[in-house]
């Protein structure tokens, strides 16, 4: 449903990434991994058609995204930004209802059917009780779930999530991650695909995702989590020794070395990248 061919991305004359290709279909989870500043956000903005590609093209539903209107795009891709606080105290249900915008006319108002869809989306994520709470006063994890509910209400087949677990506590991370997995493989998956970025390679293993590992705006490796997230690749991309181990339950985890001697950890280069 989404295909990017040999993209060069960036702002105006500033090229941030090159040689990026990917495709996502129903049932896929694609996980973008890479150090801060490697171009993940810029790639997202390009994939969403918010930023024109410098070269190459993004095809959405077989048509170049640049030729599509915002409403057409929004009916196919939903974007879940990092949980934010809006300037006004909308109710959580209103925030979710905003996901219906692309299905309304220019002067349209959400009606009963839209309200039902929004309520269903909240209930699907188990947060129906938050519907009438002030969104700006919810916790970070609750807000993130509301934004995922909004993507569900948007009824798009592809959902793009920008670090959905960033700034969440341990429990909320697991909860959000479980919902992400359910979006694609759950009973109500309805042939969805998901692209998400994360800073935690363990999540790619947990989601059994395909992984695009980026470094300095270029694809470093691309494939299944098992193939891409190797000690060698991770050590190279993040610039410190990483070991990948299998737990007793059979899940893989990535462990960075914290040893002072062995690790040339935060070099000045790594800081500039951040």
């Amino acid at each position, binding site marked *: 449903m989404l295909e990017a061919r040999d993209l060069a991305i960036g702002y105006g004359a500033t090229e941030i990434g090159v040689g990026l290709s990917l495709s996502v279909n129903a049932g896929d989870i694609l996980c973008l991994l890479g150090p801060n500043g490697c171009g993940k956000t810029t790639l997202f903005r390009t994939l969403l058609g918010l930023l024109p590609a410098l070269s190459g093209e993004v095809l959405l539903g077989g048509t170049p995204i640049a030729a599509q209107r915002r409403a057409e795009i*929004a009916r196919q891709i939903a974007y879940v930004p990092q949980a934010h606080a809006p300037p006004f105290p909308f109710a959580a249900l*209103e925030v979710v209802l905003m996901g219906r915008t692309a299905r309304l006319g220019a002067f349209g108002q959400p009606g*009963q059917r839209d309200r039902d869809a929004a309520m269903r989306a909240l209930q699907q994520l188990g947060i129906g009780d938050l519907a009438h709470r002030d969104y700006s006063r919810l916790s970070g994890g609750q807000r993130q779930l509301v934004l995922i509910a909004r993507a569900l209400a948007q009824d798009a087949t592809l959902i793009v999530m920008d670090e959905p677990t960033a700034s969440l506590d341990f429990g909320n991370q697991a909860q959000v991650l479980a919902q992400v997995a359910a979006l694609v493989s759950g009973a109500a998956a309805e042939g969805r695909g998901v692209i998400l970025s994360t800073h935690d390679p363990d999540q790619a293993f947990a989601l059994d995702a395909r992984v695009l590992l980026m470094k300095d705006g270029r694809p470093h490796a691309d494939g299944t989590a098992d193939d891409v997230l190797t000690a060698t690749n991770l050590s190279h991309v993040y610039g410190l020794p990483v070991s990948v181990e299998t737990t007793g339950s059979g899940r893989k985890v990535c462990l960075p070395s914290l040893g002072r001697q062995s690790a040339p950890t935060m070099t000045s280069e790594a800081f500039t990248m951040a």
Partner: protein
Amino acid sequence: MGRGTTAAVSLGRPVLSLTGVLTVCLAALAFVAVMIGPFALSPSQTVMALLGQGDAQAAIVVWNIRVPRVAAALLVGAALAAAGASYQALFRNPLVSPDILGVSAGAGLGAVAGIFLSLPVAAIQASAFVGGMAAVGVVTLVASMVRNTDRTLTLVLIGVVIGALAGAATSLLKVMADPYDQLPAITFWLLGSLAAITTEDILPALPMVFIGLIPLALLRWRINVLSLGDEEARALGIEVGRTRFLVIAAATLITASVTALAGVVGWVGLVIPHIARMLVGPGFGRLLPVAVLIGAGYLLIVDTLARTIAQVEVPLGILTAVIGAPFFVWLLARGRRGWA
């Protein structure tokens, strides 16, 4: 279905009854305002005069002086509150007032130039209207030429620049103006007043305000989505540039029309949307009618005070500042909830 229905009721019905209550209050307020003044009228005299019966002098006072003035106050208050609510949603900032893009500064320059050139009243009003529209036109034009990813911030900053330039030009005209004849008129205009308003003054502004309100009412859902920010609004399916332009054009038309009528009246467009948001929340579909009604009532009260508390007319801008500024501090002191 069950939950959805509850949601519909809780989001809909109280607002309807609130607008009903506010409308009744506003009508009562307007009636009382028509009674009050140097030539005081009893309720029965007022009703008779409004019906065109009874004392001829009372009828003249009511129809030639009080009704135009009350109507003007209602129109100006409603318009400024509507424009303020729109700008606040658009710029995602509850501290924004309708002047943000320089409409007041432009209208001020237009009016001052008109007074400086000793133009007739209608021409001064036209000049103020054109000045206000032109200032915002220049701001949007310059902002569209500046290549910056943050369109909203660019607009606001260019608005500050153009406002400052218009203010400088206004000051220059004040220095050059005749200090006995023109300067008092300029000062009075820049502080806002509805003294000496006539039906002929109101008639051109009235349709302009309505024309401006129509797109705001039609776009009420999209204005909510715009308040999430450009990037998110686009991702949710809105052509942000076009929609924002329409909202700015409508809100500016409204503000410039009433500023040409009443002069520069500050604080109303900043404070009233806050009160409305406290009552019905930020959803623009509910916010707009409530802000319009409260704004109309507020300015009617202020204008009635302006013409009755002293021997001379007190400029509106002074009263709205004296009332608005402390109220705003109180809002801020209530903390984060104050944004509500």
